[in-house]
């Protein structure tokens, strides 16, 4: 939670600096950002590859555990598509890409703003932050009234890191393992799914 606030602080600071017209021109012109993005993906990949537990977890899991993230992908995309059609404000493809962030707001918003522009980037950032915050708020209720799978599905990619503590408290050890697998699989899908949906 503290980390999320710090990142949100960076974002807010950026908005203020941009609004006050304090824009270092080398950041605006040129494509330094794009290379930083590539570097970021490299780092995220190294982090996953280095973590032998994360890789083993994914390799070891069976069809049963993989059915959770598979259905979360399906549900998130269909849900975002339904909102797009019902509200009619954000286009279908754009909505699908936002939904495909699965709560992984830092990476998805950066990818989307690079590929599709700032406006959708902001929607993706806020939408995926909302997903994380709503998960933290809803987890105890979902676990109690719906079942232990539901907080995990709600958390999406965040179920392996930021929302894991609160999910773990509500669902216990056995389901916490499923939460980690779910989060790991969904996080790995984001850098593939978002560009595919926007291409």
């Amino acid at each position: 939670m503290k980390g999320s606030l710090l990142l949100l602080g960076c974002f807010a600071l950026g908005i203020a600096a941009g609004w006050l017209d304090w824009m270092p021109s080398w950041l605006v012109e040129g494509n330094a950002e794009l290379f930083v993005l590539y570097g970021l993906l490299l780092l995220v990949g190294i982090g996953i590859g280095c973590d032998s537990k994360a890789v083993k977890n994914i390799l070891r899991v069976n069809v049963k555990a993989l059915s959770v993230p598979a259905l979360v992908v399906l549900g998130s995309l269909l849900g975002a598509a339904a909102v797009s059609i019902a509200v009619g404000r954000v286009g279908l493809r754009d909505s699908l890409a936002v939904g495909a962030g699965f709560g992984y707001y830092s990476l998805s918003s950066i990818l989307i703003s690079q590929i599709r522009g700032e406006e959708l980037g902001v929607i993706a950032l806020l939408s995926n932050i909302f997903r994380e915050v709503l998960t933290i708020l809803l987890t105890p209720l979902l676990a109690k009234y719906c079942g232990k799978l539901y907080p995990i599905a709600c958390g999406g990619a965040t179920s392996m890191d930021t929302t894991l503590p609160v999910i773990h408290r509500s669902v216990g050890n056995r389901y916490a393992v499923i939460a980690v697998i779910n989060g790991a699989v969904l996080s790995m899908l984001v850098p593939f799914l978002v560009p595919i949906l926007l291409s």
Partner: protein
Amino acid sequence: MLTIALCFLTGIICGVLLRGRPAILKGVSWLTDLTVGFMLFVLGLSIGANETVVTNLSSLGLDGLALAAGAIAGSLLAMLPLSLSIFREGS
């Protein structure tokens, strides 16, 4: 799109090769946080300078909230077949 996937895959391979060195993992996660912070700052910069985005920030937020609600509702509904079959609690 291909470059994005390639960077990510290269990272995973590098990570596997660099295993068993906790100092590197720690450094990488610190550098990742720093990079994400920097990228979000830059995203903020371009948003702050973009008048249309700033004036529409609240409506963009509402769009975001609606999409989050949709994605969550869809994910929860998708769990229904699982919780009735292979994840039946108490079985």
